[in-house]
C-alpha cells in the first residue's frame, strides 16, 4: 500500500483514513506493507509494516524500467505551486520557499537516497516523482511479499503505476478526493488532474470514497463504470474521550467547522444564519477555521449586520476542535463538493445533530442527519430552526446519530476493499 502520511504525523484526513483502513484489513486477514515518504518510527505498526521510502537508494538498474514514467512525471515538476491540503496560513511561506527551490536545478539522482519531507507544499511535485522511483525500487525488493498494489490519492499514483510496471502485480487506486473537490469546476489543477487520470487508467480497479466521487471518476475522468467501486469510509473513534466544557454562553450554538474556502460553501451558511436569526434571537452562529474566503465572510456578516450573533474563531487545532464540537448544538456542513466529509461524523459522535449538503459523500450513508442542497439556504435555515426549536427532532437526531456513526466500522469497509483485491487477482 502506498500512502503519503500515517498517524501520528498527519495534516489532512488521508492519514487517518489509511490508519483505520489498515487496521480493518488486518481484522479481515489482509496483511499490509505500508510505504510512506517519510516515516518517523513512531507510527502504530500493530496492523501494518511500515516501509520508509527515505531509506531506499534508487537502484541503477531501475532506471531503464521506469525511465519513461519518470520523463512524464518530470514534466510536472516545473514551477509547481500547488498545495493540496496545506493550511492557508502557511501558503506565503511555502511559495517563498518554492521560489528558492526553483533556482536550484534539481534532478533525480540514481543510487542515492532521498529524504522526503512527507509534507504538502514546496517541492511536492518533485517528491511525488522521487516517491515513484523509491516506491518502484521497494516493490522490486519486496516482490514476493505482496499480491496487490494499493495507492492512495494522486500523490502516490505514480509510485503505484511504477510498481505495477516493474512487478506486474495488479494495481488498485483509491480516490479520496478529486481535483473537482479542490477547486471549482472551471478552476482545477490540470497537472493533478492528469496524474489522477493516468493513475486510474493504469489501475485494474478504482475505489472511490462515495458514489458522488465514483460519478466524478466516471463522468469527469472517463473511467469505465465497471472499473470503479464505491467504498465509503468509516471512522475510528477509539481512544477518543468525551470532554466536558464549561459553557459561557446560554444561547444555542450552530457551528460551521472547516477550511473557509469556496468548496466548503461558507457563504450559504451565512445566508442561512441570517434567515434563522430573523426568527429566533437566542442563537449564535460560529464559523470556525480559516481560509482564503475568511475575510470576505467577515465582511459579508458585517454587511448583514449579524456580527453580534455570528462569531469567528480563526484556525482551530487539536483540543480546540473537540471543544468547539462540545459547545455546539447543531453542526452544519454546507459543502458544495465533498468526496466524503468526516467532520459531521465527528460532530454526531459528540452528540451534535448535523446538517449536511446532499453534495457530500457522507450524506449517502447517514440516515440520522438532515440533508439539504448546499444552495438551498431556505431549506438549510429550516433544518437549523427545526433542530433548535423542536426538542423531539434534536433528541432523535442526537441519539440515533450517535448510534449510527458508532456503527460505521472500518472492519466492514475493509471487507469491501478485500473483495476488490480478490476481484483483481
Amino acid at each position: 500500500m502506498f500512502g503519503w502520511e500515517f498517524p501520528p504525523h498527519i495534516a489532512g484526513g488521508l492519514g487517518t483514513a489509511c490508519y483505520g483502513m489498515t487496521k480493518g484489513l488486518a481484522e479481515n486477514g489482509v496483511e499490509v506493507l505500508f510505504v510512506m515518504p517519510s516515516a518517523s518510527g513512531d507510527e502504530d505498526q500493530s496492523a501494518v509494516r511500515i516501509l520508509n521510502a527515505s531509506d531506499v537508494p534508487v537502484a541503477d538498474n531501475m532506471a531503464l524500467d521506469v525511465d519513461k514514467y519518470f520523463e512524464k512525471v518530470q514534466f510536472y515538476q516545473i514551477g509547481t505551486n500547488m498545495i493540496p491540503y496545506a493550511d492557508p496560513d502557511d501558503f506565503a511561506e511555502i511559495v517563498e520557499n518554492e521560489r528558492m527551490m526553483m533556482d536550484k536545478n534539481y534532478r533525480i539522482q540514481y543510487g542515492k537516497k532521498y529524504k522526503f519531507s512527507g509534507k504538502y507544499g514546496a517541492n511536492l511535485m518533485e517528491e511525488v516523482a522521487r516517491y515513484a522511483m523509491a516506491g518502484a525500487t521497494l516493490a522490486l525488493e519486496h516482490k514476493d511479499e505482496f499480491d496487490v498494489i494499493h495507492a492512495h490519492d494522486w500523490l502516490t499514483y505514480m509510485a503505484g503505476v511504477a510498481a505495477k510496471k516493474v512487478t506486474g502485480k495488479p494495481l488498485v487506486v483509491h480516490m479520496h478526493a478529486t481535483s473537482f473537490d479542490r477547486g471549482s469546476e472551471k478552476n482545477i489543477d490540470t497537472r493533478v488532474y492528469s496524474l489522477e487520470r493516468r493513475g486510474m487508467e493504469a489501475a485494474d480497479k478504482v475505489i472511490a470514497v462515495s458514489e458522488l466521487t465514483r460519478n466524478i471518476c466516471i463522468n469527469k475522468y472517463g473511467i469505465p463504470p465497471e472499473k470503479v467501486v464505491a467504498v465509503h469510509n468509516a471512522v475510528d473513534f477509539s481512544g477518543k474521550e468525551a470532554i466536558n466544557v464549561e459553557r459561557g454562553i446560554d444561547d444555542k450554538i450552530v457551528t460551521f467547522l472547516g477550511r473557509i474556502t469556496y468548496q466548503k460553501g461558507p457563504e450559504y451558511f451565512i445566508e442561512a444564519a441570517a434567515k434563522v436569526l430573523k426568527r429566533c434571537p437566542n442563537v449564535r452562529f460560529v464559523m470556525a477555521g480559516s481560509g482564503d474566503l475568511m475575510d470576505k465572510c467577515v465582511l459579508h456578516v458585517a454587511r448583514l449586520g449579524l456580527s453580534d450573533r455570528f462569531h469567528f474563531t480563526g484556525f482551530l487545532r487539536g483540543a480546540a476542535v473537540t471543544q468547539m464540537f462540545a459547545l455546539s448544538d447543531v453542526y452544519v456542513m454546507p459543502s458544495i463538493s465533498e468526496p466524503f466529509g468526516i467532520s459531521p461524523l465527528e460532530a454526531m459522535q459528540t452528540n451534535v445533530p448535523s446538517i449536511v449538503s446532499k453534495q457530500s459523500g457522507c450524506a449517502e450513508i447517514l440516515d440520522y442527519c438532515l440533508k439539504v442542497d448546499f444552495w438551498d439556504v431556505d431549506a438549510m435555515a429550516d433544518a437549523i430552526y427545526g433542530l433548535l426549536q423542536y426538542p423531539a427532532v434534536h433528541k432523535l437526531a442526537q441519539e440515533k446519530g450517535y448510534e449510527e456513526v458508532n456503527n460505521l466500522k472500518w472492519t466492514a469497509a475493509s471487507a469491501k476493499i478485500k473483495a476488490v483485491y480478490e476481484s483483481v487477482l
Partner: protein
Amino acid sequence: MKPSICLTFKIHQPTHLRLYRFFEIGKDSHYYDDFANRSLIKKTASDCYLPMNQLLLNLIKSTKGKLKVAFAISGGTLEQFDRYCPEVLDSFRELNATGCVEFLCEPYYHSFAAVADDAEFTHQVNKHRNAIKEYIGADVKSFVNTDMVYTDAIGEKIADLGFKTVLTEGAKHILGWKSPNYVYSCVYNPKLKLILRNPGLSDDISIRFSDRNWNGFPLTAEKYYSWLEQAQGDQVVNLCMNYKVFGEFHPKESGIFDFFESLVNMVISKDCFTFATPSEIAKKYAAVDSIDVQDPVSCENEEKDMAKWLGNELQKEAFNKLYALQEKLAIANLPQLWEDYGLLQESDHLFNMNSSFFTDKGNHRYVNPYDTPFEAFINYMNVLADFAIRVDEELN
C-alpha cells in the same frame, strides 16, 4: 492688535484590548491588555510627557508667563496616568499652577458619542469636566471633540453644555476661500466661537519635521518663523498637534525639543505675536463670519472626514452594535458596565479596523496591534459579545 499663536496639544493613550478568543465569551470579562497599556504609557511618559512638560515649565518661567499653551487630555489617559505614572499628573498640576495653561474639555472616553448618542455625549462631557477638576485642579472653558470632529449639530450641543469656544479642523472644504487664521462662529448658535486648526503650519511640525524628503527639511526655528510671519494681520494661528510629536513621533535626537525652545524664544523676542489660550482668543476677537458644517469634519486624513473610523462596513457594524446597547445599559445602570462601555467606545478600536492602512504609507505613527482590519474587528466583536451578555444578565 498683534495676532495670537494658539498652541494646543492633544493627549490620548488608547486602551488596547487583549487577544480575546471566542471561547472566552461569557467566561472572562477582563478585556484589556494591561501589560501593553502600562508599558506604552510608561515609555511615552519618559520620552515625551515628562521632558516636554519640564521644557514648557522652564519656558513659561523664563518668558515670565508669556508662553501659553492648551492641553486636551482624554479621561482614560488621566486614569492611566493616575494608575501607572502619577508623576506625570504632578507635572500637569504644576503647569496648571502657572496660570499659563488651559485644559480643554472633550468626551471622557475619546469617543464619537457626539455623532452617536446625545445622552452619552452629555454624560461624557460632564464626566471629563469633573475629571479635569479632580486630577489637574483646572476649570474647563473650551471644548475640542475627539479628533476634532465637528458639525453644526455638534456645535449646538456643545453650546448647550455651556461652552463658548470650540476647536476644530481648518479643513478646506468647510472654509472654501476663507483663511483658518480667524475666529468664526457656529451657524446655529452665533455665541459659539470656532477656532480652526491651521493644517499646513501644524503638520509642518507634527508630520514633516523629520521627513528628509520634504523640501522644508531641515526645519529651523528661523525658517518656521518666516512662515508664521505671513500670518501677520490675521487674528490667530492655531497650531494643534498630538503631544507625542515631541519625543516620540520625532525622537529627541531629531532636535524637536531644541526647535521648539528656539521657536518660542524667537516669537517672544521679535514681539510680533502673542501666545494665547483658546478661551483668551475667544474673548479677544469677535467672529468674522459663521461657518456652515453639515457633514462631520475631522483632523485626520486627506479628506478630513470620518473615513478613518467609520469608512468601511466593519467599522459601521461595530459602531452600530456598540451604541445599540445604550438603552439596555441605562436600565442596567451598573458602574462597572458603564466603565467598560466607555472604554469600548474609544475611537482607536474603530481606527484599528480602517482599511486604508494597507495603502497608506504616509505618516503611520499610531500603534495598530492588528495585522488586518478583519482581525481587529473579530477581536472587538468577541469582546462586545461578552459585554452584551453581561448587560443582558443584569436585565434579567
